[in-house]
């Protein structure tokens, strides 16, 4: 019996490999398994290669898994195009269509030889059962049902939803293909049992969603009233989600003519008093930075979600990367401080988006949420969320007394000034991107500038100190450390658990608030650290660099950074930790950025 199975499948566009994956994860979720599914495609819009990777488990999964347990190749050309995204290992079982004419001994996999290889007549069996080769994906579902033990009913439910409209004949044909697959599985037992243990979650209690939808849902929960944006992969689904939902709540989604107009309209709507949002990816974010500067100096609440893809420039539009962190923190002229948050899983997108709105409204600031293609597009099961635990904040409005002699940018102790909205008698002011005094009047001189810069930085003091915006996993005194953010945090969670299992003294730091840096939180975490890794999906290891800017980083803490679209496996991280552990000294000389001379 297995607790955790990772399946990878690839074929060409028409093969329906992705909808097979969708059926599988829906069924798994419905009966109470935890699961995660990511899809990957070639550059073609239609046709071309496509693949998916589904992980099904009896316990919560935090990452897409390492090497595949079960690989399904409808043809080798397409399968191989996904390279390390569908990596096989020595424990993998490989299934492929025998009509490829390749002998099991000759399959073109590089590296490790798989544990078991099946050349099955997938097309032939499908045609025999269904009378058409278009039902290959149903045959594969049957195979998986047989091997994994996920029930026929649950799997057929998804298939019915998908094919119901196309008439009963097609559905029947696909059911026959499914059954043929199931029989085939029974006839070809696996040498490594993958029959899943019973799920331990009540059937029907799981949610299933992708990160972009959960981001949209978080925005709705937080009270979003305006979205202005422009389509860009891999963020567009956020606009599409809100385009379906927001109108019901009296809100508006504007598909603007470009990214500048999208964020501009959102800033306008926020100035007008509404909770506002935009979403984009790296290139769009580049265009929005001038507007973000305006929102900073004019102190306008705004949530911007950047679902990162590979860069620079058009880069890798459909692949994940974590290389927009520098951009998020520093792409502004002038001295700017704006909060940057990152969700670490699909479900976490909900929490982090609500948090982003709360911070934006409370501090009257743009807030950037750095999601990534991996989280944005992958589907995950999510355990029930108790939404009554979430607070929703509103921006500070001026009192009647304050409106008597209203100063929009009044100096206050915490740097946050009451913000009036158009329509309020007595609350009119000039909002401007030029430096201004407390009342809003343009005043481009040094004294005012120093004072207002100070206000705009000071107001984040209470944010920086928040302890609930990071998580420490494991023994806080452990000498080995991992630090990770975004989609890599899940991989590191699994790595940390694996490492502890094998006796390594490893802890993990996962920040939700990436910037500004909570120096104390990091300081405390790092105090006992002798060696470790900041694990990131980028070329430069951007968080590692930003930490050095602000925190005394022990010299033993290194950057483990890999360029986008190259998966980082938890087992590789554990291997690195093993090496670091072997070189550990006695826990004496933990050190810092500098020591006063």
């Amino acid at each position, binding site marked *: 019996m297995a607790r955790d199975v990772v399946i990878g499948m690839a074929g060409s566009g028409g093969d329906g490999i992705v909808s097979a994956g969708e059926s599988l994860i829906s069924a798994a979720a419905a009966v109470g398994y935890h699961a995660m599914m990511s899809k990957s495609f070639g550059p073609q819009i239609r046709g071309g290669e496509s693949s998916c990777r589904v992980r099904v488990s009896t316990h919560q999964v935090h990452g897409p898994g390492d090497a595949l347990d079960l690989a399904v190749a409808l043809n080798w050309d397409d399968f191989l195009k996904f390279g390390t995204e569908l990596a096989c290992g020595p424990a993998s079982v490989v299934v492929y269509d025998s009509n490829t004419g390749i002998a099991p001994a000759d399959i073109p996999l590089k590296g490790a030889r798989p544990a078991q290889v099946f050349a099955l007549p997938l097309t032939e069996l499908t045609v025999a059962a269904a009378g058409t080769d278009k039902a290959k994906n149903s045959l594969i579902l049957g195979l998986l049902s047989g091997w994994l033990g996920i029930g026929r009913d649950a799997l057929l439910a998804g298939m019915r939803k998908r094919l119901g409209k196309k008439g009963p004949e097609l559905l029947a044909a696909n059911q026959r293909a499914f059954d043929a697959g199931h029989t085939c599985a029974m006839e070809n037992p696996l040498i490594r049992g993958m029959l899943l243990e019973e799920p331990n979650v009540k059937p*029907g209690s799981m949610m299933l969603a992708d990160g972009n939808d959960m981001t949209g849902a978080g925005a709705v929960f937080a009270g979003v009233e305006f979205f*202005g944006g422009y389509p860009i992969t891999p963020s567009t689904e956020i606009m599409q989600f809100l385009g379906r939902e927001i109108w*019901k709540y009296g809100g*508006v989604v504007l598909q603007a003519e470009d990214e500048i*107009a999208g964020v501009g*309209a959102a800033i306008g709507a926020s100035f007008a008093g509404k909770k*506002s949002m935009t979403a984009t990816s790296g290139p769009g974010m580049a265009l929005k930075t001038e507007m973000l500067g305006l929102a900073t100096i004019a102190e306008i609440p705004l949530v911007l979600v950047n679902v990162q893809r590979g860069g620079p420039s058009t880069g890798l539009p459909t692949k994940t990367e974590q290389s927009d962190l520098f951009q998020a923190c520093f792409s502004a002229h002038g001295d700017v401080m704006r909060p940057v948050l990152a969700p670490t899983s699909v479900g976490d997108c909900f929490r982090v988006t609500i948090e982003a709105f709360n911070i934006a409204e409370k501090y009257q600031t743009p807030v950037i949420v750095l999601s990534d293609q991996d989280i944005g597009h992958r589907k995950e099961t999510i355990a029930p969320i108790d939404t009554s635990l979430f607070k929703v904040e509103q921006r500070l409005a001026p009192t009647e007394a304050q409106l008597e002699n209203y100063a929009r940018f009044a100096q206050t102790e915490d740097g946050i000034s009451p913000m009036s909205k158009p329509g309020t008698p007595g609350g009119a002011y000039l909002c401007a991107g030029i430096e201004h005094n407390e009342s809003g009047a343009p005043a481009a001189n040094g004294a005012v500038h120093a004072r207002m810069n100070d206000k705009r930085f000071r107001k984040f003091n209470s944010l920086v100190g928040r302890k609930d915006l990071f998580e420490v996993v494991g023994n806080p005194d452990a000498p080995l450390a991992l630090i990770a953010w975004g989609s890599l945090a899940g991989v590191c969670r699994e790595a940390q658990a694996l490492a502890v299992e094998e006796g390594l003294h490893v802890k993990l730091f996962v920040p939700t608030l990436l910037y500004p840096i909570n120096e104390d939180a990091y300081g405390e975490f790092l105090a006992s650290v002798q060696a470790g890794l900041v694990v990131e999906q980028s070329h430069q290891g951007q968080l590692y660099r930003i930490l050095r800017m602000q925190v005394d980083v022990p010299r033993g803490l290194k950057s483990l950074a890999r360029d986008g679209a190259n998966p980082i496996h938890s087992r590789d991280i554990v291997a690195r930790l093993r090496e670091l552990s072997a070189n550990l000294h006695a826990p004496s000389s933990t050190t810092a950025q500098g020591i006063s001379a």
Partner: protein
Amino acid sequence: MSTAAPLLAKDFKSDLKPIWCPGCGDFGVVAGLYRALAAIGRPPHEIAFVSGIGCSSRIPGYTTAYGFNTVHGRALPIAQGIKLARPELLVLCAGGDGDGFSIGGGHVPHAVRRNIDFTYIVMDNQVYGLTKGQLSPTSPKGLKTVTSVFGSIESPINPLLQVLSYGAGFVAQATPADMSGMTAILEEAIRYPGFAYVNVQSPCVTYGEDENDLKAHKTKMKSLSKMGHDPADYLKALELATHYGVELYTGVFYRNPNPPPTYDQQITERHAALAAGAPKRERVLDMFAQKP
């Protein structure tokens, strides 16, 4: 929504002292606007007034409305966001020829085609005033400026023809040399239910036409209504607009006799239609439940 006591022009004038050059045409524009707004009668706090960057874009600060002096070229998207968020506000948008038709030119067709109910006033002085006298997109060909010392070799754009070709429902031109005419046009534009465009010939006395030229507008201008132009005639409006830069027509080039529903109206209708079926925001996650 207007208050009881009638509003006067001075109720719209703020305490900020304009820092325009003495004689700048923009003084006239803001004065005309005070009058037009007084005639309309919405109190200043129900008005949101958006601009970009430029001498002309300083105008919101000289009014008692909620002003938003944004960044160069981006007044239109911000104004649209305000109006879509709060359709009950009176929204005005203003700026220069450079702000509107150079860096901001990409936003104009889309502001127009959405037909959101607000008024866009461009103070067209055929030059970049604030940055001290460079070419603007409406500068005539051959003009020598600090960025065209050997003369400009590009033809100017035609703001009137452009905005007409984008399908604007109200397109007019005015000059502060004719204060009462300009005030009437501004008032009519603001009252038009949909996107309205007013091109104001507002000279830059420092880098463009001098003060006497501004006065000469009065003699050069040709009133479209006096010429017998029917503002419902779209094709004729296109033809007349082709004379921009040659003739100084004032008045309304085009007013759609059957104003189509505005974007903001359609939004309101959609809200009414969809509100009934909505779950509470707190229950937004229900849609993700995975039942067996």
